[in-house]
């Protein structure tokens, strides 16, 4: 019946709608000018994301608005995460321009897949219903599978995409299974409805916990936590470096949003249960990630294992929200905002680290081995310094943003009474320091094996410099980003 139809409020979803419409334009432009003017698709993609930024900024009113029959939410947290996502994607596009052009990969598909993956992330970030979450997740994942295999002739890329797809599909299955169990127990797919049912205590605990296990497994897969981390090294290694950079940055924000929406917003009542699961996975990730990274000779693989350990640290914040079953708003905001801050800091560092790999690569040459960093200080003191900043930041040494991220997370963990876990975590960060230091050693103490001049374009150099300086500047003045993270979370819980 038409008169029963109520037009949903589209306003909160304006950025998503804009992006979708623009993606059609990109599609057409690529169809018409794709062969001759490839830069047009790239330019349009960046314009789209800038447009999304503007729309998100304009429509952000700090209020929590639900729309599409309570399936979609627009709150301050979503706005903030989306803005960081746009920024990360734009940075990735600028970083990748020359690399993709040199390899003939700057096709329309690349930009479209990036746009759809971004759309998927945005939907995940704004999901207020299990189905919306799943929809966003699949849109993002499927686009990413395609992106990993974007270089058709690369067997390594294809293999990585296969692995990613098979494991990713399995994880999606687990997630769906978990969701269905929770639906069975609570009778609701809405995040608010599930929380309500748990609060009233009508749901059956065994079914809930059973579902929770699967849900946590699905989330852990997306975050890349041990023991669901197997795909990370292979995908990071096999994908073209720009795609690795993409996977290593913005999707972490979406995965964080997914963890937060599912575990905190929906299943806060089961926090005591999932905190224990996360605890084990966090410790394992920090341990295995840092140990395995030492053995790597390929920097993409090294950064993959480092990503595993970083996500472990992030989860350390995520699991510290509820202390001894007592719900205390201050502790919760403190813990979750530390995890959010960690994710944002990590995305910034990760972009910079892969940017360095792109800087050293050139047409027909992949600078993806640690050896390629040898003697960089002789070739370019400036970029050696930028890499030094990023590596020390990842190792958690002050004055860089990585230190304050670790600091915030450790503080949350100790506040929640996990002092022993915090000690273990810092001890493993000592292990981690070793391989970051090794990169610095290669750059500063060794003589170059590769003396080719660095040919990267001005855009990459400029962005990389800014990226590195931001890692340092947000370390000297960490207050602003921390406050934004805290405010975004506080106003959205």
């Amino acid at each position, binding site marked *: 019946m038409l008169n029963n139809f109520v037009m949903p409020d589209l306003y909160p979803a304006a950025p998503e709608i804009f992006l979708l419409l623009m993606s059609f334009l990109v599609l057409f432009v690529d169809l018409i000018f794709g062969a001759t003017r490839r830069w047009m698709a790239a330019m349009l993609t960046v314009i789209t994301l800038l447009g999304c930024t503007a729309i998100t900024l304009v429509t952000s009113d700090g209020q929590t608005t639900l729309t599409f029959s309570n399936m979609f939410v627009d709150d301050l947290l979503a706005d903030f995460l989306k803005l960081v996502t746009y920024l990360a994607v734009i940075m990735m596009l600028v970083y990748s321009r020359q690399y993709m052009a040199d390899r003939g990969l700057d096709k329309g598909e690349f930009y479209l897949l990036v746009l759809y993956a971004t759309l998927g992330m945005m939907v995940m970030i704004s999901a207020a219903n299990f189905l919306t979450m799943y929809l966003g997740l699949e849109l993002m994942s499927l686009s990413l599978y395609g992106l990993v295999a974007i270089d058709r002739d690369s067997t390594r890329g294809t293999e990585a995409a296969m692995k990613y797809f098979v494991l990713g599909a399995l994880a999606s299955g687990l997630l769906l299974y978990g969701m269905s169990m929770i639906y069975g127990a609570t009778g609701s797919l809405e995040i608010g409805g599930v929380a309500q049912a748990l609060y009233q205590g009508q749901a059956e605990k065994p079914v809930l916990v059973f579902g929770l296990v699967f849900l946590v497994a699905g989330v852990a897969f997306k975050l890349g936590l041990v023991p669901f981390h197997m795909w990370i090294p292979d995908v990071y290694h096999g994908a073209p470096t720009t795609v690795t950079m993409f996977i290593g940055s913005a999707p972490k924000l979406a995965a964080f949003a997914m963890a937060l929406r599912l575990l905190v917003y929906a299943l806060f009542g089961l926090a005591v249960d999932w905190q224990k699961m996360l605890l084990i996975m966090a410790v394992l990730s920090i341990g295995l990630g840092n140990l395995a990274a030492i053995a790597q000779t390929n920097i993409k693989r090294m950064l993959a294992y480092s990503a595993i350990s970083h996500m472990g640290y992030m989860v350390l914040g995520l699991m510290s929200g509820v202390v001894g079953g007592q719900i205390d708003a201050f502790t919760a905001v403190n813990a979750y905002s530390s995890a959010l801050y960690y994710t944002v800091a990590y995305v910034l560092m990760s972009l910079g680290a892969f940017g360095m790999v792109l800087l050293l690569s050139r047409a027909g040459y992949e600078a993806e081995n640690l050896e390629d960093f040898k003697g960089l*200080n002789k070739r370019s*003191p400036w970029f050696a310094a930028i890499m*030094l900043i990023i590596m*020390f930041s990842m190792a958690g*040494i*002050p*004055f860089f943003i990585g*230190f*304050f991220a670790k*600091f*915030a997370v*450790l*503080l949350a963990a*100790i*506040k929640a009474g996990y*002092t022993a876990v*915090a*000690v273990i975590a*810092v*001890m493993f*960060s*000592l292990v981690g*320091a*070793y391989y970051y*230091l090794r990169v*610095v*050693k290669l750059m*500063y*103490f060794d003589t170059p094996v590769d003396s080719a001049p660095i040919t990267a374009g001005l855009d990459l150099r400029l962005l990389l410099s800014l990226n590195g300086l931001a890692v340092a500047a947000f370390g000297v003045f*960490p*207050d602003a980003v*921390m*406050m934004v993270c*805290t405010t975004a979370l506080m106003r959205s819980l």
Partner: protein
Amino acid sequence: MNSQLLSLAIWVPILGAVPVFWVGSERRTLVRWLSLAVAVAGFLVTLPLYTGFDATLSGMQFVEQAPWITRFNVQYLLGIDGISMPFILLNSLITVLVVLAGWEVIEDKQAQYMGAFLVMSGLMNGIFCALDGVLFYVFFEASLIPMYIIIGAWGGPNRVYAAFKFFLYTLLGSLLMLVALIWLFLESGGSFNILDWHQLRIGMAPQILIFIAFLVSFAVKVPMWPVHTWLPDAHVEAPTGGSVVLAAIALKLGAYGFVRFSLPIVPDASHHLAPLIISLSLIAVIYIGFVALVQTDMKKLIAYSSISHMGFVTLGFFIFNQIGVEGALVQMISHGFVSAAMFLCVGVMYDRMHSRMIADYGGVVNTMPKFAALFVFFSMANSGLPATSGFVGEFMVILGAIKFNFWVGFAAATTLILGAAYTLWMVKRVVFGDVANAHVAELKDIGSRELLVLGLLAVCVLAMGLYPFPFTEVMHASVDNLLKHVAVSKL
């Protein structure tokens, strides 16, 4: 409210390093003079800290306060008392000398070399000024970065191993300290102010744990036996300037940490575990003294002698009497001068011979009389000869130790024999005797620049040995206050 003097002491060298990096190593003359200008400026801004210091006050002076991380109530809180003030001056002075010492010797990447030392200098000033736990930690750990680069990039053949060992050992300690700092923050109800922590009441069990966390951190830095093994490696491999800064300043950071953190924050644990620290200190003094005796490498010998001397410092702190603590502080400053001078002397010889082995030398006095005079003088100071600064600190600590317990004092006093034995035996083999080989015969005596550096240190050593009053005067009130504070139980 006073001025921004402490901020200047920190940021003048650090920001001054930026143009030094910028100029680049190609323009060597400009880089040298610019670095010297920055280092001298960095030293000059610290002078008002001494002249404007009120020695009658025991509290913090030149305090600066500004919010830094409001989220965790972390403040940019600086201040100095009589304990920390001398070290800022010492550090800034040593930086000038290090720049001069690297004038001609460093040929590779000189701008980065000078810049790294300037950054290091500012960061270490920050450690001595910081009154906020996080600020302290941030400076403490950030100072590892330039030192890591200095050892690894300009060091000897085994520099990579030494640089890693240095970094990871020190990081191991400081990470545990970070956990302790966060614990204190939560326990104190949300304050990172060190002075608030001084007043915080803590139970015995947490006190012990915090003490251990701090101990690991500071013991590695001092370094105390048995976590001292990174130091000989780092010293041997580091370039002369690196050794000088390590010995003169970086080692003091650990000892300073004991006075600023361990003693006042956890006094009961400090008293309880004092026998442990005293034993470790005596082992450092005696056992490491013997180890120094058998070294064949001059830098290694001085490194072990440093450990032995630092054993005196920790001993002085944990006997809890005025003369002991003040003696330890005097010993720290004196060791700053003497060890810097000793490493510079070895550097002078190394620049000419490219060897640090005692066996390669002999009869240096015949070819380098001016140098030999200075070297012998500093060696005397190193072995604690009266009228040099080395004597004052050791004597005070021994007096304090005898007051505390005769046998502890007796054991500590053996250093007067051991120190003399290893230092003078080295001098005998290197400086005196006939010219050992053709290389020694070709040695040229020190030039005016080297003479200036060593001469300046000689004046300091002598002045402090003859008239230590200006040094003890400024620290008297603060030490008195510290001991009163430590004597009160916090349980």
